[in-house]
């Protein structure tokens, strides 16, 4: 293993970490702005020009707040909860291919931290671990509301993971691989998976809304019933971590959706750019395109949040178990039949 490899990977990890934190930071600002525009308001505009320093001000506020640990809370778990939520949110970016290989001094440098051959499963594992942060936090708070919210989060995530997993199976039947790099490479140019798997994509998207605890599935933090949900007892930067983790999760699931269904870094005319200008330019342009797709998804997350009211708990369970899972199974069967027929003839 040569030193350049290690330095390259280290740089990539650092940059990715920084990017996800910055995007999460500015998602809070974007959320408030989008909410404001959708409600005919202006949103934060006092801190800096157009309020772009608002996230910094919020961050400083979070750090300066008094930190309160409830007397009867389980101290260690209370501290581990937000950390775990943050950790699980951050490590998801490792397997996503952020662009085509760059060629530097004749050496290929992949814009992906690691191309493990079970990338899809890794993402699933990390996402399902994320719920432990919520559960541990809710349990350790020693508060009934937090506990109820933690239970809700757990049952919601488990229910929607089933449908999510089933919706992805149809995709895997099509692509024949679990490696995200290969899945993206197969969608070269215009052959995005969403064109072949529209139903699978809708199911996957609804499930990722539920997995990230975003509206309309934000039952774990529903103010009207549960005060603040699992983070009722949290204050200062621990609360900040939970809120931050939600936005990083949103970023990661947007990236996963863009990668799996919307062609990742692929864009029409990429070969043309590669031959006409240079392969490196085409690759960097691809990364830019990927980020544009991610931002579009993040905007969609926000747009939906300020449109649809929250589901009731029984509606949530009905939608998950009685609608999404049968649809996902039907999708697998149809995909299987079509592929069998296409291969036969």
């Amino acid at each position: 293993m040569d030193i350049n490899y290690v330095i390259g990977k280290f740089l990539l990890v650092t940059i990715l970490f920084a990017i996800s934190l910055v995007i999460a930071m500015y998602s809070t600002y974007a959320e408030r702005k989008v909410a404001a525009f959708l409600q005919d308001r202006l949103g934060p505009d006092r801190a800096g020009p157009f309020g772009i320093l608002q996230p910094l001000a919020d961050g400083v506020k979070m750090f300066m707040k008094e930190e309160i640990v409830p007397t009867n809370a389980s101290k260690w778990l209370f501290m581990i909860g937000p950390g775990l939520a943050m950790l699980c949110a951050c490590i998801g970016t490792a397997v996503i291919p952020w662009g085509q290989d760059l060629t530097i001094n004749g050496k290929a440098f992949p814009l992906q931290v690691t191309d493990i051959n079970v990338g899809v499963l890794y993402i699933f594992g990390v996402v399902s671990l994320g719920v432990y942060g919520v559960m541990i936090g809710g349990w350790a708070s020693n508060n009934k509301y937090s506990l109820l919210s933690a239970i809700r989060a757990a049952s919601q995530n488990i229910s929607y993971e089933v449908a999510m997993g089933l919706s992805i199976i149809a995709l895997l039947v099509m692509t024949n691989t679990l490696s995200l790099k290969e899945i993206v490479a197969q969608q070269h140019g215009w052959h995005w998976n969403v064109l072949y798997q529209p139903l699978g994509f809708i199911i996957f998207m609804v499930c990722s809304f539920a997995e990230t605890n975003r509206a309309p599935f934000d039952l774990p933090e529903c103010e009207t019933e549960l005060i603040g949900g699992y983070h009722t007892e949290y204050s200062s930067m621990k609360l900040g971590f939970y809120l931050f983790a939600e936005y990083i999760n949103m970023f990661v699931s947007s990236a996963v959706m863009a990668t799996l269904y919307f062609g990742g870094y692929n864009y029409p005319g990429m070969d043309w750019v590669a031959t006409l200008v240079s392969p490196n330019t085409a690759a960097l342009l691809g990364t830019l395109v990927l980020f544009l797709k991610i931002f579009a998804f993040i905007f969609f997350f926000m747009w939906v949040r300020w449109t649809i009211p929250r589901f009731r708990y029984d509606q949530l369970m009905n939608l998950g178990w009685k609608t999404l899972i049968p649809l996902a199974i039907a999708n697998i069967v149809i995909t299987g039949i079509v592929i069998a027929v296409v291969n036969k003839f």
Partner: protein
Amino acid sequence: MESLSNKKKVLEQKPLNFAERMYLPAIVKGLGTTMSHFFKKSSTIRYPEQVREFSINWRGMHSLKRDEEGKERCTACGLCALSCPAEAITMIAAERKPEEKDLYREEKYAAVYEINMLRCIFCGLCEEACPKEAIYLDGPIVPSDYLRKDFIYGKDKLVEAPLEVK
């Protein structure tokens, strides 16, 4: 019972049909509605920089008026203080000296005139009670401050600026 107003609506609770159970058509419609608001002009007024136009009967901060020759109209009769339901107005009367003839219109004037802006409810009764047309609530919004004592406005803040000398 017969409905007299004809406003009664009987709502039928039908089970949802397939499209409604899918939620998606309704969600798409809702997304369209919110997106149409995204491009609308916001109705926010950036307050300290922009001020909303006040209505003609707006009652704001008080001002003590002067007459055409620039003399203070107030004669310290105390009717405003009496009429004030919030007990916000106090004053100390004094007799005008001959050399102050250009400053005050009547022989008696208010040496001290104080309105506690935290007590004032801006009802406008002082304005109505004044026989000399000396007090009007025609000012702007009373600004905020940090200390209670700073909300007791004296003559320095209340009396109109003197007339410009021609």
